[in-house]
């Protein structure tokens, strides 16, 4: 078995004439957090949807636990253990914590045709799982709408892990959160990785990504600008790569020039 849990080799995706992704390669080990960085329009969303089985790649291959995988639907990706938490979290705010936690995969009991949703069991599991991440749900039948943004994010992640995710794909988990809430979510992500999950963390916020990431892949205009280990790259360098480096460099030169003129 190779050292990588999942590999995405030379993935390309075209929408008509538009090249959304071109030759993107990523490899993840167990317990690794890879941050996928990129500015708006860099192709992050397309890549996530390809990983999650929503889009089929036009070129390239996905190798999971040494086997080549083709997804026909998001369900297939879920079944082999790629759990995706989208930005909208797939939570219904009017429904209870438990009903959200088990949405689509409700535990059942009873005889065929009279099977019921085992709410007691579901409540227990949901409360227990949320407790493990330090969120005390007073009442698992309370509406998700009453939870804070960070708690909702943790609920969605916890749900993906409970249902057997080995690779966790997180789409901008901290973008809508304040500093405190974001750090709560990031802490949970590190904890999940320490338990052996591979995490792909998609973000445009280097300050959130850098402290938790083991490696960083930068996307720009549909192409990967490479994957870097944390020891090989600084926060500043990442930031400048993301923003299409040259533009910032040029800006810097121009500013220096202005400075020089003023000083003279």
């Amino acid at each position, binding site marked *: 078995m190779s050292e990588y849990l999942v590999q995405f080799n030379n993935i390309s995706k075209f929408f008509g004439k538009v090249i959304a992704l071109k030759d993107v390669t990523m490899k993840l080990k167990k317990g690794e957090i890879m941050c996928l960085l990129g500015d708006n329009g860099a192709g992050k969303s397309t890549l996530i949807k390809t990983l999650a089985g929503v889009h089929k790649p036009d070129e390239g291959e996905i190798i999971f636990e040494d086997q080549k995988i083709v997804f026909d639907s998001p369900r297939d990706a879920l079944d082999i253990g790629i759990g995706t938490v*989208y930005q909208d979290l797939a939570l219904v705010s*009017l*429904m209870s914590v438990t009903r959200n936690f088990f*949405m689509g995969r409700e535990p059942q009991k009873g005889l065929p045709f009279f099977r019921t*949703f085992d709410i007691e069991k579901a409540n227990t599991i949901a409360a227990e799982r949320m407790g493990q991440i*330090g969120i005390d749900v007073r*009442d698992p039948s*309370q509406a998700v709408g009453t*939870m804070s943004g960070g708690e909702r994010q943790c609920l969605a992640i916890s*749900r993906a892990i409970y249902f057997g995710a080995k690779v966790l794909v997180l789409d901008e988990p901290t973008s809508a959160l304040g500093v405190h809430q974001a750090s709560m979510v990031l802490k949970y992500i590190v904890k999940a990785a320490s338990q052996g999950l591979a995490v792909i963390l998609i973000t445009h916020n280097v300050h959130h990504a850098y402290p938790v990431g083991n490696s960083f892949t930068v996307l720009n205009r549909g192409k990967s600008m490479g994957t870097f280990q944390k020891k090989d790259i600084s926060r500043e360098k990442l930031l400048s790569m993301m923003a299409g480096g040259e533009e910032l460099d040029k800006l810097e030169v121009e500013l220096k020039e202005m400075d020089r003129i003023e000083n003279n």
Partner: protein
Amino acid sequence: MSVKSESIQSKKDSGQDERLKKISPLRVLLNRPELGALGGSILVFIFFGIVAGDTGMFSAYGTLNFLDVSANLGIIAIAAAMLMIGGEFDLSIGSMIGFAGICIAIPAIYWGWPLWTSIIFAFAMAVLIGYFNGIMVVKTGLPSFIVTLAMLFILRGATLAITRLITGRTQIPGLRVLIEDDPIAWLFATDTFQWLFTWLGSMKLIALRTDGTPLATGIPPSVIWFIALTLFATWILMKTRYGNWIFASGGDKVGATNVGVPVGRVKISLFIGTAVASTIFACIQVLDAGSADTMRGTLKELEAIAAAVVGGCLLTGGYGSAIGAALGAIIFGTVSMGIFYTDVDTDWFKVFLGAMMLIAVVFNNYIRKKVTETK
């Protein structure tokens, strides 16, 4: 280990949460969508108890009368509520009632089919039409409001055209004689607990006709169907996986799809549900009256939606209850019958209906905000 520190953390949290637990019984009550309808129906009964308490409205006969009206509306209101929780509307309910009526009457009277085959035929047509509504909405992504509005016209027009083409008229009488000895028709046409009413009559506890038989002969079939459907729908919504899928489909279609809920199938099945409920309504009405009429069920779709809304269903989907819709139907049924027992001109009924709906929507909106407000 980290898990340990988390549990200490959560213990610390629960200290401050005890304070919140005290208000939770109120929250639990507020959490229920049918709260408004429950309050409303209590008010309605108190009002008529005072205004019409001595008029015979609450005699056995009077009670069964307004229960019958409520139950008929309730049968379609419950199906409409489930569909609404699933995030869609069905405006073709009323037309479906008329259409189902002639699907029973034409084969039975003009083609010589046994009554039970025409009843099955009507239900088969309902499943087909519901499926068509559903597949149109799911596949095209058009608002169900538009798709079923089109179906409202199509069905009403087809009902009229087909009936006139085959029979040359718009009413089909003569069904009553076919009910006897039919293996299915009794399901929609038998008064139950007749022995109880006969006994009550013999004890002189309820009003009698001049020949000594009780005025109220038994519980009408609509009431039995209404109770059964309320229980069944509540069981589905609260206790089954499919019920959770209904809430999820209405609450967030995209999210539900992403976690593996078959949203399309859920919605299609709910459209079939409203069409089938309309057909149950039609069976009861047609067999009770002994005739089908092309105009039957007109505007029933709006009454059903109004009852569901008064019962706490959100127009945007994802929230509501079958018991709420049932209570909504009872409110409307009670008022529409009760108004005859008061001095109020019955012309005012529609005014009441509209006002009731407005109050319900404002109230439910307020409650929903309370329930989901971020702490």
